[in-house]
């Protein structure tokens, strides 16, 4: 009974985002603005910028992902949709897991994937080499799903809580640090001519582990929050 729930929630979320295109683009706008702040704050020297680029781009992607994640469940809880989704699956069994996976996927499709696609633009602005930009996109392609999954977990934990957005960032960002280290490290490695294979394997392992465990934890958090 889980496939219809997953499909229904995913389709609905994407449809809702399509109706509010501006809202869906806000995280990307934030990313662009935040990234642009660094040259302004640090100075336009190309060598410095090239060096800090992997970290800056990754950190801004992380923050952009976290900012848009609070809305995942908040509206649904207020209008009662979340209760209905928790009850789906027939005969009174709670179906938090497919809901959690669907929400994470919709968040990634709407925020993570666009970030991967626009990252090259900003890589160029920081004068990264072509190979580095490719590494950037690859690391974000592996990393943004991790961010969506962890952000999803944070949103479920802080559901309905005052100042949930800021609290979520405090809770989840420490957990995202390994992904940040391996992701930006991969780009730095490529930029300095070294191999990034180690970074990518670790990032890949993290992706798999998070993909398997985070939805389960999110489902538990949703049950706690709706009880």
């Amino acid at each position: 009974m889980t496939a219809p729930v997953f499909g229904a929630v995913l389709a609905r979320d994407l449809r809702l985002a399509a109706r509010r295109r501006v809202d869906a683009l806000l995280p990307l706008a934030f990313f662009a603005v935040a990234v642009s702040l660094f040259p302004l704050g640090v100075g336009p020297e190309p060598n410095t910028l090239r060096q800090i680029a992997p970290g800056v781009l990754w950190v801004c992607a992380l923050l952009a992902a976290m900012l848009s994640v609070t809305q995942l469940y908040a509206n649904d809880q207020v209008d009662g949709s979340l209760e209905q989704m928790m009850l789906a699956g027939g005969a009174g069994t709670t179906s938090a897991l497919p809901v959690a996976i669907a929400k994470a996927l919709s968040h990634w499709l709407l925020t993570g994937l666009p970030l991967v696609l626009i990252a090259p633009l900003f890589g160029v602005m920081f004068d990264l080499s072509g190979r580095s930009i490719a590494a950037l996109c690859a690391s974000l392609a592996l990393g943004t799903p991790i961010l969506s999954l962890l952000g999803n977990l944070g949103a479920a934990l802080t559901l309905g809580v005052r100042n949930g957005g800021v609290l979520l960032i405090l809770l989840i960002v420490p957990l995202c640090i390994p992904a940040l280290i391996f992701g930006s490290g991969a780009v730095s490695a490529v930029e300095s001519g070294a191999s990034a294979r180690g970074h990518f394997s670790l990032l890949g392992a993290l992706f798999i582990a998070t993909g398997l465990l985070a939805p389960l934890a999110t489902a538990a958090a949703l049950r706690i929050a709706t009880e």
Partner: protein
Amino acid sequence: MTDTTAVILAAHALACRRGERILFHGLNLDVRPGQIVWVRGANGQGKTSLLRLLAGLARPAAGRIETLAGRERVYIGHANALKDDLTVAESLMFLSRLHGFDTAADVHDGALRRFGLHSRRDAPVRTLSQGQRRRVALARLCAAPPTALWLLDEPFDALDAQGMTALNELLAEHAARGGSVLLTSHVPLTLTVPAPITLQLHEASAA
């Protein structure tokens, strides 16, 4: 007249807690096919909490709930579970898909017609009044399995006379074909066939 066929939902010594307060304990209840149970009690006594427990959204602080396998439970809470940006038809479709209800177009059209909303089927929910939204929320009952147990929290809320009539007819039909209903309502029920059974929540326990 009590139907002597199988009990489809039974609760034994149920206790419900909200925060640190115990709302009620020692509640026993069973629901049989064809019954309409009206849960009554003062504000804050746990009517909504009871419905949520029976729906499976929360676990009771004590006691147990037994449900007959194969009997679906349909829960319509106080909130309508409608998104402002979806149309009436899309909302109905989403909720039906979610719960595995009938998604056939003619069933949905019939449901909307019953509640007088067919003309608004492509209107965004945002443009509807409170009463109209309540009707959309209730419309999915027509797509639900025919003998399900309906758990309705204040279904008559915001409905006008026409809406109430439509709902009463729906309830009567549902009971007649062997389904059952458990609902709360601060508005006195005007339904007479079948006569609703009252379940009064007290501080201590219940009927």
